[in-house]
């Protein structure tokens, strides 16, 4: 395919082309058929438009125009100016190979000249192109080809695989640097300890000096190649008036090399017994620290395994229906409203609603739920899950960054990058750590020099160098983030989304969990079970009255009553004068009678005598059913019982929580007897019943005032204030709605078992963080003074600088490895 560069048109048709061009544009924002006329009129008034037809049903504009007189940009502008929009998409592509400003216009022209492109802007600085295009006319793939044919390379956002490659490259580079330093170390060690090697033992001082000069030169590549990152890093940090691990290693090895070289070149400057060089320290320490970095990188790579797994769930292509035909397109090009075809065994590419067919879908990768979910028309399907048995079609409702999977990945990434309050101390310390170590090293030098035994200069130098090398700020810095990364990732694998490090820390210390009854402990789909009427009353009539009032209600119990009416073949009439009283019930006029439907409080409010229903309503409540009273013209006429079945795993989950030593409290707006009956069945001791929805947050506050650390578990929509009030708000997610704002933790699976898992993971993560922090603090506070020589006056012990290098290299590897243990946490 040849792409001519045509600066005048945006549709790929040259300005010299004298025929009419016909394009099809998707138009969005049309709400009524009359909108079409508005756009048609606006378009027809333009010079160069031969014909403009807008089809309301297909939401498309068919425009014939003369490209010599008018450009696509103007046509789109007119549509936008009349208050509508064209269904264009924007994409940013990375462009490689642009070297000069003229490249910019080359790429821009190529893009603008290709069909379907509305606008293209190329930025040389960020090496990117922002392209607005019509997905119905072109694809991202063909945009890339257009850029390719103009001589450059286009890429979409960097994929995780590329990041992986970069890590692998870094690892290999570290290994190469290690190998070089290690190979250099061998001969350097030999000449550094001549007395241990038979041939060297007998050499005279002059020959040895020559060998040492060789060692001095030989260690240069260890410094400038293997140790290059330390020196570069130290210089960069120094420019920012900061110091880090690089500073310490660079100073330590640099000082050792400089001193040794001076000793070899000008031995007469030093006392007789202080004329030995320490080139071995230089190369061996660099080799060890680089090896440590390589091992650390490997171990750190495993800490992000969970997020890589999540990213790997994303499908690459989707089969959609465009213009009546099934075509495979890259996932980035699926649009909301597309009909997507999924065959058995295939991955569902984006989120949507099933419109045709049925199947069972394996959602375990997102929810942790091992059993496949049955899906039929109207059910939600989630992108990234796997279709098992049947073929079906679904309408895409969320694509790109809006899909549940994309949101999950984003949330996990955000949480992994967040900080836990426990890190504060480590952060404060690490801000002063490196300068403090440098001060200790200088003090050590001075004290050895002033007070130490001969050869003072050597011992002073070794004290300072060893101090610099042994100190490990990295262990301190790595301690919390690595454990958090793994903890958050592990949780995500089990369908638990944790918002940030703080949520983990607080969740690990919870002692009370408040569960909302309806929809949390119970399924949330109540059914009408019993109807009891006054002696002279008629069951059908009572249900009819009740159903009439509930017709307009959004209360969860309303649906149960309406369904109950449906099965009794009752068509409820429309009520007059309808009035809902939150926390009480509803009132209205049906057939000229004033009907009240609600709880005991409502009956008391209107002064209806409940004596005749006292026994029945208590009996119903004791069975865990919710009695609803019906009064006709202010007199009690019947009781309707509605019951909401328990979730299958509620009992197991609540027992599990108790096993963790957590108190479980049930909160509900339901009456006390019903609530207590259900609490008894699931094994909950404390019940907060008859709580008005708006008071849930206050009840949580009351529990907090008892000194409890409280988690509130609810559906995330009606319970937002209570979720926000609680120390940890846990929302039970449903389907693709995963990023529930008010919650700290979202349980995607919708099962209560997730609460226990969330608490267990949090506890394990915090334990791991504490181990790491303790290890890192202990290591540094113990070994830095020893390296400086604090034990010398007492026991005559000093630390070998090479040992210090080994310890330093191992300490951060240990921290990361310990964090990695979390990956094997067993949840059940």
């Amino acid at each position: 395919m040849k792409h001519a560069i045509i600066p005048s048109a945006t549709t790929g048709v040259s300005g010299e082309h004298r025929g009419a061009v016909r394009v099809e544009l998707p138009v969005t924002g049309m709400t009524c058929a009359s909108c079409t006329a508005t756009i048609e009129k606006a378009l027809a008034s333009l010079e160069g438009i031969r014909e403009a037809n807008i089809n309301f049903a297909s939401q498309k504009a068919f425009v014939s125009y003369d490209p010599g007189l008018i450009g696509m940009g103007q046509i789109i502008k007119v549509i936008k100016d009349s208050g509508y929009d064209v269904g264009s998409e924007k994409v940013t592509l990375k462009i490689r190979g642009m070297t000069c400003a003229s490249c910019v216009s080359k790429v821009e022209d190529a893009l603008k000249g290709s069909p379907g492109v509305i606008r293209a802007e190329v930025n040389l600085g960020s090496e990117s192109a922002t392209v607005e295009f019509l997905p119905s006319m072109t694809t991202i793939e063909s945009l890339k080809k257009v850029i390719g044919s103009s001589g450059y390379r286009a890429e979409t956002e960097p994929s995780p695989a590329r990041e992986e490659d970069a890590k692998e490259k870094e690892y290999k580079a570290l290994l190469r640097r290690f190998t070089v330093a290690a190979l250099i170390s061998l001969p350097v060690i030999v000449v550094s300890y001549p007395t241990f090697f038979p041939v060297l033992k007998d050499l005279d001082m002059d020959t040895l000096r020559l060998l040492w000069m060789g060692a001095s030169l030989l260690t240069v590549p260890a410094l400038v190649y293997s140790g290059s990152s330390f020196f570069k890093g130290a210089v960069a940090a120094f420019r920012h008036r900061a110091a880090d691990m690089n500073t310490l290693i660079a100073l330590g090895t640099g000082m050792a090399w400089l001193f040794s070289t001076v000793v070899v070149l000008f031995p007469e400057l030093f006392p007789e017994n202080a004329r030995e060089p320490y080139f071995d320290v230089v190369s061996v320490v660099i080799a060890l620290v680089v090896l440590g970095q390589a091992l650390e990188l490997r171990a750190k790579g495993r800490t992000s395994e969970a997020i890589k797994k999540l990213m790997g769930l994303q499908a690459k292509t989707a089969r959609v229906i465009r213009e009546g035909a099934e075509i495979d397109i890259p996932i980035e090009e699926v649009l909301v409203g597309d009909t997507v075809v999924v065959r058995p065994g295939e991955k569902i590419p984006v989120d949507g609603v099933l419109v045709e067919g049925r199947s069972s879908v394996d959602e375990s990768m997102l929810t942790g739920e091992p059993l496949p979910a049955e899906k039929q028309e109207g059910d939600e399907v989630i992108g990234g899950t796997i279709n098992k048995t049947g073929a079906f079609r679904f309408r895409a409702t969320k694509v790109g960054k809006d899909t549940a999977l994309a949101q999950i990945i984003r949330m996990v990434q955000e949480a992994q990058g967040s900080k836990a309050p426990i890190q504060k101390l480590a952060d404060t310390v690490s801000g002063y750590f490196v300068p403090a170590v440098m001060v200790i090293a200088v003090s050590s030098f001075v004290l050895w020099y002033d007070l130490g035994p001969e050869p003072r200069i050597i011992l002073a130098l070794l004290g300072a160098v060893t101090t610099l090398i042994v100190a490990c700020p990295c262990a301190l810095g790595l301690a919390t983030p690595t454990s958090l990364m793994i903890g958050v990732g592990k949780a995500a694998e089990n369908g638990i989304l944790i918002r940030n490090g703080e949520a983990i820390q607080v969740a690990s210390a919870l002692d009370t969990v408040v569960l909302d009854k309806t929809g949390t402990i119970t399924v949330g789909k109540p059914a009408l079970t019993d109807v009891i009427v006054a002696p002279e009353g008629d069951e059908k009539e009572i249900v009819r009255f009740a159903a009439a009032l509930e017709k307009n209600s959004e209360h969860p119990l309303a649906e149960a009553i309406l369904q109950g009416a449906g099965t009794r073949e009752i068509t409820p009439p429309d009520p007059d004068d309808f009035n809902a009283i939150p926390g009480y019930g509803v009132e209205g006029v049906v057939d000229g009678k004033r009907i009240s439907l609600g709880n005991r409080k409502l009956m008391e409010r209107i002064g209806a005598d409940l004596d005749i229903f006292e026994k029945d309503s208590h009996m119903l409540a004791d069975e865990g059913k919710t009695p609803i009273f019906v009064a006709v013209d202010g007199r009690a006429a019947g009781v309707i019982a509605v019951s909401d079945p328990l979730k299958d795993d509620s009992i197991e989950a609540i027992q599990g929580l108790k096993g963790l030593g957590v108190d479980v409290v049930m909160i509900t707006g339901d009456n006390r007897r019903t609530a207590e009956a259900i609490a008894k069945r699931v094994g909950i001791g404390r019940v907060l019943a008859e709580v008005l929805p708006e008071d849930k947050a206050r009840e949580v506050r009351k529990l907090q005032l008892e000194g409890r650390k409280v988690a509130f578990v609810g559906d995330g929509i009606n319970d937002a204030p209570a979720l926000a009030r609680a120390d940890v708000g846990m929302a039970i997610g449903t389907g693709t709605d995963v990023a529930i704002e008010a919650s700290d933790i979202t349980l995607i699976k919708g099962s209560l078992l997730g609460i226990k898992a969330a608490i267990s993971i949090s506890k394990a993560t915090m334990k791991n963080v504490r181990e790491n922090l303790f290890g890192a603090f202990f290591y540094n506070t113990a070994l830095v003074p020893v390296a400086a020589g604090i034990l010398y006056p007492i026991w005559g012990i000093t630390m070998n600088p090479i040992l210090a290098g080994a310890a330093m290299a191992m300490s951060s590897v240990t921290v990361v490895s310990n964090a990695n243990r979390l990956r094997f946490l067993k949840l059940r």
Partner: protein
Amino acid sequence: MDKVIVTAAGILTIAWIIWFFLFSRKKQVRAAVSSGIQEVFIKVKGGYDPDVIVAKAGQPLRLIFTREEEASCTEMVVFGAFNKSAKLPPYEEVVVELLPEKPGEYDFSCQMGMIRGKLIVEE
């Protein structure tokens, strides 16, 4: 005599270390405002350049990071107080958007807290 020199030099070095790393003034830049959004370009190389950013409260702040190195230390920037973090792939512009509401001083750092910058939010 040599001991006196070494001691004096040591004390001076210590004083210099403390001053240089903890008390010396760092490069400070005020966020430029364009069409209601405050914007700062930050180069990441062994540190944040500029290290200190001054911004106005209540106005969206756009920080554009470019990490000009491959050393993994700086691969992430964390704004603890804003619960925001971003991965910084080498040589790519990464935008972090914040809405600083309360005046005050907020630290930002790499994930390990070794490399730091400061955001000063003024009334």
